[in-house]
């Protein structure tokens, strides 16, 4: 995806999201309660692979009340700095009554408006909200905001069936194939595309009518899209939001010689990106020849760096 390629260098340069909050809401039945808690626990486990600097907090079961959510997000608002990144991940059931979205929690539910108010107080400039509940599309209008990536499991508040998107979002963090550009980082966009594809495949293979259609908006608009791309102005922020980057290494620790090679590598990557943009307008053979040459040069450079 072009968006991914454009932002590759940016994604690699930025620190991983520092703060992750996962909330598993009320299941309503023992099966759903157990499933939501398990997904939340799995997410917690995977996100902690980001290293000791990652602040991972998970609320589930009776600990995930509206009051607890409010307290947690309020305390984060005082702790988080503008340069930090913040991610909120919601798992469970939601409801929508044509005006308000509510995330179902033990005791009183919390509305999308209330969540938005809490999120707006968090100073982190880069924010990611992944609402994986039923009816989550109904929360888009309240949550969408400049510099905030909002992902929902459903396209609107009227998709009311329990969702499976969360299962595949968790898988995206476990499955190395989610890292489609092989840069060692799973970005929010890669996780979205992975979970979206797996969700669609689930409904198709089971011969069921799809009851959920995941959406993304990262340009501040409530008009989320299913296919983020430059043409619709979505995907840029999500591609640059590293969700999972285990064992990342700082460029500063490299020798001056290797730093030179890194510059060369970045230059080659930029050339490859530019070439790919020109692909449609080029004769196929010429494109392939130029691409192969650049890729070979990049491979040699990388080999030098790794030596």
């Amino acid at each position, binding site marked *: 995806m072009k968006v991914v390629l454009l932002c590759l260098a940016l994604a690699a340069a930025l620190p991983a999201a520092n703060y992750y909050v996962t909330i598993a809401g009320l299941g309503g039945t023992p099966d759903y309660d157990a499933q939501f808690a398990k997904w939340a626990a799995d997410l917690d486990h995977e996100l902690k692979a980001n290293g000791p600097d990652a602040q991972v907090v998970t609320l589930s079961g009776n600990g995930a009340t509206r009051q607890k959510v409010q307290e947690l997000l309020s305390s984060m608002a005082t702790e988080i700095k503008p340069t930090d990144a913040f991610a909120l991940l919601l798992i469970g059931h939601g409801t929508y009554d044509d005006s308000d979205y509510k995330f179902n929690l033990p005791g009183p539910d919390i509305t999308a408006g209330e969540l938005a108010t809490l999120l707006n107080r968090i100073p982190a400039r880069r924010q990611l909200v992944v609402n994986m509940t039923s009816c989550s599309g109904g929360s888009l209008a309240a949550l969408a905001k400049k510099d905030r990536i909002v992902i929902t499991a459903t396209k609107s508040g009227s998709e009311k069936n329990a969702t499976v998107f969360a299962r595949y979002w968790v898988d995206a963090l476990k499955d190395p194939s989610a890292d*489609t550009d092989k840069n060692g980082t799973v970005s929010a966009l890669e996780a979205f595309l992975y979970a979206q594809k797996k969700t669609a495949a689930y409904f198709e293979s089971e011969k069921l009518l799809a009851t959920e259609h995941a959406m993304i908006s990262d340009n501040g608009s409530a008009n989320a899209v299913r296919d983020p791309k430059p043409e619709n102005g979505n995907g840029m922020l999500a591609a640059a939001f590293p969700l999972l980057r285990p064992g990342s290494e700082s460029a500063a620790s490299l020798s001056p010689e290797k730093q030179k090679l890194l510059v060369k590598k970045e230059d080659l990557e930029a050339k490859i990106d530019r070439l790919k943009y020109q692909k449609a307008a080029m004769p196929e053979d010429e494109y392939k020849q130029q691409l192969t040459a650049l890729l070979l040069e990049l491979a040699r450079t990388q080999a030098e760096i790794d030596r």
Partner: protein
Amino acid sequence: MRIVSGLLWSVASLTFVTQAMAAGANDCHTLKHHGQMREATACFERLTRASDSLSRAEGFLGLGQYDAANEEFRVAFKEQPKSADVRYEWGRLYLEHYQPGDAAKLFEEALELDPNYARAYLGLARVAGLGYDKKAPDLAQEALQHDPKLYEAHELLAYLALEDSDEKQATAEAQKALAISDEALDALSVLASIDWLSGKTQSEWMDRVLKVNPVYGEAYATGAHFFTINRRYELAVDYERKALALAPDLWPVRSELGLNLMRLGHSDEAKKELDQCFEAHWRDAQTTNALKLIDTLDQYQTFESGSTELMLNKKEAALLRPYIEPELQKAVATYERKYKMKLPEKVRLEVYPNHDDFVVRTLGLPGQGGLLGVTFGLVVAMDSPSARPPGDFNWASTMWHELSHVYILTATHHLVPRWFTEGLAVHEEGAASPEWGDRMTPEIVSALKNKKLLPVADLDRGFVRPEYPTQVLVSYYEAGKICDYIAQKWGDDAILGMVHSYASRKTTLEAIQDNLHESADAFNRDFQAWLDQQTTETVRHFDEWKKNLSAASKAANKNEQIRLDIALRDEYPAYVGPNSPYEELGKLYQDMGNKADAIKELERYRNLGGTSVASLKNLARLEQEAGNAKEAEATLTALNDIYPEDEEVHRMLGNLLLANSDASHAVREFGAVLALKPADTAESHYDLAKALQAAHRNSEAKDQVVLALEAAPGFKPAQQLLLQLSQ
């Protein structure tokens, strides 16, 4: 042909005069019955101007103006709300206008008003007959009880008997009809059909038909119906053409002609016929669905090889062709050897990703419940693996099954009885691969327990007019077992001998006598004893098994659960359906860390034909973890026959094959991953590049690694491979 029959009787009656209709309608029907079409039309037109609404309705109906007739019936219904005649005649309209459900409702209402209304029973019998419902003969008999002179009921009974291949009964009923009316055209048509089915092209009965009505194309259409249900589609087409030559406006016949042409792979000709029907406003579900299907044929691609043609939907051709085409060629080569024959032309396999498209090809044929594939001469149509949920069926065994039909139908000139070709096809599945073939499902155990198997000579009835919901399934099993038994006791040559007997128009009784040298009674007795040996224990424990099935999941602890599941497994070892003890034991052992026993149970499940994709994938992972690459490979290969749409299965198998130096098959597996349009394109191109490199196809490998790096320029393993390939 059922729908033609619906038309026939509308013109055949001379005795159902009602007060309101007076003699007018009868006169018109008499003219039509004698083929005086111009005069009949004028007569019906006169009726449309009659003073009473029922006569007008009858007039419009006679002219085929269904909307106008419907309106007049509506008026008649308001005028005579308590009239059974109005309801009955209105029902006739619906029956003729491909709405049997509405027709049945009106016939039932007529019977509520007049429980002695013989024709309403006959109407219900016709509706039941359209769906090959076993109630049809009973309803026709009921009609005769109320009116013993209702010769049309005898005609219908003759027709139904011939559908059951009971020529003796069909002849007797037809003669009864002729004894009441020597101009009973449909009785004559059934008798002529018996001649045609037996190979006589000239029939004295048809001569008699033409003397009564020189344009009675319906008689040929009746013959075509019987050729169709006996899978003799080429002849069905011939007789449909003869019918239309006499009566070009027999739209249901033209529609059936279109469908049969489509079944035979002549889509262009089929479209012409179906378009004519559509233009003439004959737009029943069969016609419109067939036209819709033909319109989608440009979405398909045909791959030809020496003796095969494979038609696949373009969107899944890249995935399926590498699996289906070699399997198709293997089946053709196997059957050529086994049946000592070559097909006269290429065999064509059509694979439909949309089950509804496949179903269109089978409309109007009996015994279609749960159908996966169907054979029309040299053409086989079947569901694609993508047409059904994962684990629902095994496409490879389905294909072998259908291909067996192609050979047996060809070898017997389509004269084989249904039970034998189905039984042999099931037998061939098991011969091709032991885990294929029909399993002894609980429905079958229940039938065995209740002694519901049919004698071999009557087994066709179990397919054509089942007496209980699962009888078709049970009949497949029984027929398959009969062929297993013959092959085991007398050898494949005896099977081939029976094929040749059927080709010589021998009956089942004669085929058994000639090739197995025993009477049908002795055969039935010995077969039952042979089958009992295999099934007695399961049948004996069946009630207990059913009771224990739910108890196992509620056991107090895992050890108790294991004990119960082992008992369940041993009581009914062939059961591999949902929640089979093998899968349950596999899970329990795995949860307890006893992977060796988990593998053992799941391998039993696999070898018995279990098809749960999740369980088999789990088994493959366990086998791989246990270092048993060969078994893992076998499991994943079996999965490809069940559900080749799973990216992970191809990737796992590709890696195993590559590690096992089987680069060419690894190329196929990684190619399949790419055909499934994976999210991770870089990894998938890289995997294929590795396999191509191992297969010494370096140029293609380089192309793939460049594609991998195009998606992910920083993908280090791919970079290293590119450097290697560029040296």
